[in-house]
């Protein structure tokens, strides 16, 4: 039973290398609700004081989002317009209170099918940096989340950063969340997208959909189909058969049929949002 609050990465990784399980905590915004009213027994590793773990920096041609970077940090950061979708998502994560504490890395580690951050991060081709005393490895976000509440992270690993690779010139991001009320809402469907446009037509498209399958997904076939289209053409591209890789379910937030329609509409709205500028 201890609460560890290391200030260096070495200490943090050392703490994870022990025999027993260690609960990694940053913002706590998913951790405490999951704990519920039970008393916690075990060791907590607070990563929010680890030097160099918080913040967004240019890295090579791309960007590095530190593992303890909060959603509010994302909102305040000066980032190119390809990050607009991620910023829109940041505003929709719970509430200001949640955004001030909750972290981007925590959002992907929690691996909820409805994680607000995942579709925009997928549309940014995000790569996850996992560190342990064994070394450092990088895993594409699309491989990192393996199922509902399941990730590639081993017990001794820490998500130390997310890397967003160099973005094409003029890339623009967008995001749409569909839910049952204005704030504090778990999405029914969600879309993050990054488009590169030329003369009003799509050069490349990266579209990711959340809340419509166990893990948010990039829509590869649709992305290809969107290439070369103008807005009208793009909207016409978004058809149910382009979405067959999804597996929306029926739950308290909506029927599977409704989800499928909501995804279609969310993609269209995101495309419109970006292409109309």
């Amino acid at each position, binding site marked *: 039973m201890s609460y560890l609050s290391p200030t260096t990465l070495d200490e943090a990784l050392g703490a994870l290398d022990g025999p027993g399980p260690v609960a990694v905590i940053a913002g706590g915004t998913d951790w405490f609700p999951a704990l519920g009213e039970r008393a916690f027994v075990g060791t907590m590793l607070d990563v929010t004081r680890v030097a160099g773990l918080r913040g967004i920096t240019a890295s090579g041609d791309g960007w590095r989002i530190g593992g303890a970077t909060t959603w509010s940090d994302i909102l305040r950061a000066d980032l190119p317009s390809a990050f607009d979708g991620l910023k829109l998502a940041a505003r929709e994560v719970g509430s*200001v209170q949640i955004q001030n504490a909750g972290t981007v890395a925590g959002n992907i580690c929690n691996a909820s099918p409805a994680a607000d951050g995942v579709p925009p991060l997928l549309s940014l081709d995000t790569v996850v940096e996992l560190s342990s005393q064994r070394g450092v490895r990088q895993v594409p976000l699309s491989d990192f989340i393996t199922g509902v509440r399941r990730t590639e992270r081993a017990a001794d690993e820490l998500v130390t950063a997310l890397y967003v690779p160099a973005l094409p010139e003029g890339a623009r991001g967008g995001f749409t969340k569909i839910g049952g009320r204005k704030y504090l809402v*778990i999405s029914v469907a969600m879309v993050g997208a990054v488009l590169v446009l030329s003369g009003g037509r799509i050069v490349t498209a990266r579209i990711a959909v959340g809340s419509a399958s166990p893990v948010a997904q990039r829509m590869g076939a649709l992305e290809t189909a969107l290439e070369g289209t103008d807005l009208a053409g793009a909207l016409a591209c978004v058809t149910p058969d382009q979405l067959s890789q999804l597996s929306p379910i029926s739950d308290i937030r909506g029927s599977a049929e409704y989800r499928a329609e909501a995804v279609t509409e969310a993609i269209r709205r995101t495309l419109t949002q970006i292409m109309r500028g």
Partner: protein
Amino acid sequence: MDKASTTHLTGFTLDHAPVQIEGRVGERLSQALRDRLGAKDVKIGCNAGDCGACTVLVDGAPVCACLMPVQQVAGRHVETLAGLALRDPDALRLKESFQHHQAAQCGICTPGMMVAAVALLRAVPQPDAGQVQDALGGVLCRCTGYRKIIDAVVGAHGADTLEVSGQELGAPARRFDGLAKVEGRDLFGDDVAPEGALVARVIRSPHPHARFAFGDLADFAARPGVAAVLTAADVPGLNAFGVIPGFIDQPVFAVDTVLFRGEAVACVVGAAEAMLSLDPEDFPVTWEPLDPIMTVPEALAEGAALLHAGRAGNIMCGGRVVCGDAEEALAASDVVVDGFYETSFVEHAYIEPEAGWAEVVDGRVHVQACTQATGMDRETLAQVLDMDRADIRVLPTAVGGGFGSKIDVSVQPFLALAALKTGKAVRMCYTRVESMMSTTKRHPARIDIRIGANSDGTLTGMTFKGDFNTGSYASWGPTVANRVPVHASGPYYIRDYHAQSRAVHTHCPPSGAFRGFGVPQSAIAQETAFDVLADKVGMDPLEFRLTNALRDGLPTVCGQVFQTGVGIHACLEALKPAYDKAKRDCAAFNADNDRVKRGVGVAGGWYGCGNTSLPNPSTFKAGLRGDGTLVLHQGAMDIGQGSNTVIVQIFAHAFGVPVADVTVQSADTDITPDAGKTSASRQTFVSGNAARLAGEALRAQVLRQANASDTADITLENGLVHVVDGDRVHPVDLSRLDPDAEGYVLKAVETYDPPIAPMNENGQGVPYVQFGYAAHLCVAEIDLTLGHVTPVSFTAAHDVGRAINPLLVEGQVQGGIAQGLGMALMEEFIPGRTENLHDYLIPTIGDVPPIETLILEIADAHGPYGAKGLGEHVLIPTAPAIFNAVYDATKVRLMRAPATPARVRAALKEAGYA
């Protein structure tokens, strides 16, 4: 490694003062602030980041204290409302503007709202409404409807120039109990127990229906830290509680079999630390799950197992109102509209979970908890404990919202039993999940309705059959069954009417009292059917209602004739300007938009104040002490609605002095007479009358002392009483009179009981002596593609007879509309599935549009100074007004509440929308 973490000592600054505590691993900041540092202004509503009540600033940034490990604030500055309210310049302004706008009703969300608002104002001194919504979107409020909060924050920078209203009858006075709420000093159910009190935790069924058996309870009771284990065997009196004679059927602790998920089977009492680590899974009980009956059709099916022997067909009771011959009238009608409607369980979702504490003092049991009904709590405890009522003292705390559910007991029997068994002070606070799974809900309804009209638009007849899912135990189910047939006609003249209701048992949580007692459900069916009817006869829906509105001298469906005070016609008339404008605006909007449409909906409503054909007394006591102190014993529970203010305004007016001259003794069964429960919109009407009578009686006694006429003025100054009668000024020397045992030299105790009369087998009679009336207009936007229905504005006309306090009237109206909006569009409690505030959605600050309140004063024959009740009336027309706006825009008739986007979209598609 950080030194602080290994020693477990966490040092930080709390409201500018250095503090140091030894937090547990896994301890939340909210709990540490409250339990270790006494910061009771930090409220805990959900422990999951869903409600924001625990919002504090950490280095200036608002966070949910329930989601932050206490160790994480080491070296940081934590600010809470109590500290901010002392000196922070933005908080000082917010204090004024929150009171001025009545942005705090019950006050439980106020610390979260104000702290979040301070952070906003530091960054944006003059925010607009949208910025306020974004900044406060993480804090839920269930009372105010948010608009007053938005006004208060937007207007905070102008707080210095606010004019403070007078307090006299009719003035928009600030709440008299408001300052404590905006300074974080108001004490709620979980804020009052003495340090070191034992903690009680209830063991509940995880199954909706099961048999169970205990293992070795003595062994469990001998565990370290456990002081006692309570089961049915420990109940000295009746192991049952309930609210209606003949329907006292819910066990304090189930015996052998449970009838709903969340039902209590035992209670563990022990030291706080031990109870914190108690895992209910470890409790020695084994369950044998049985097939549950979760719906009304299952419960009514041939051969369905009975929940309660003696309640054949699982029908607990029914209600019936019949006049004329409805079938014949419908057969002769030019047009008939029929329909089947369904509504869902609705959770009260007050932000304060049930909480309180109890102790034994000189052989008497004291129970202090959040409640709507101190007198009834004492009655229940007397039966359960087998004690004389005189040996039980019930004190309320401030109540963080009730809306009906806190009329029933929750924590009270457990606390009293635990205090008696252990001889020690015992406290408890329900978790959010526990609160939602175990306390009462609004009844889901299944309604068949048929309404006829002639081609000239006059209503001919109506039949109504409503089955209400009353859950596992009676609670207020009989009241719903009785009340609905009386109200299901709406405030309209219908000569031929046949309405019946049934309360049907299922293995769901008990359905009970919830703002409106079944009438909001029936109003959805009746008011939306009206619009289809109006359509069929080619009449405007507002004209249709005006044509059929009840008027003075016309009988209700119960054969009751009011010669004065029928205000529905005036309410509908009052909507006309807004209605005409909204129709024009919507037409213009729709001409420009294809996939989003706007519509205008109206709906009316009425509500009888007080118990249905049953006695409903309230008693008030007032006295003068020898030193000239005027005291009012105010026993009416203020659950946020404002009786602490309104009743005092009435009393002061009746006695004839300014409010400031009245010293108020708050509810306490030892010192205040029973004012009856806060329910059925009765406090302003019934308790208001009792307070008026007490004021008048005491005034008469003073005037007698001076032989003065009825029109004389009384002044109280510096302990001296003067009676000014025309030119004559009489000093009245109270000190020469002998004080009674309570210290009063003059005293008045007065009771008011509405003069109702029984109803016959056809529901004909005098169920209520007073109705209040309302009509709402909603402009709503419908997203045809996604099925989202977004109310754009409301105009709400309310006949309140006499607005004792217009500011509080507006507060009730706005808060009621927010609840009606939630019921209409998003709220659906599903046992075992939506037992938290992120799966169960209530409106946030971004979901309630601007609301214009039109206050009408059509005096009631019985109300104090003509005043009528208001609380429940408000949410009755809201949902149908929204549904009618959808019908206006799309011709799609919504018949299922809540009309979630998925359901609306499905209905649109069925109607042929792409």
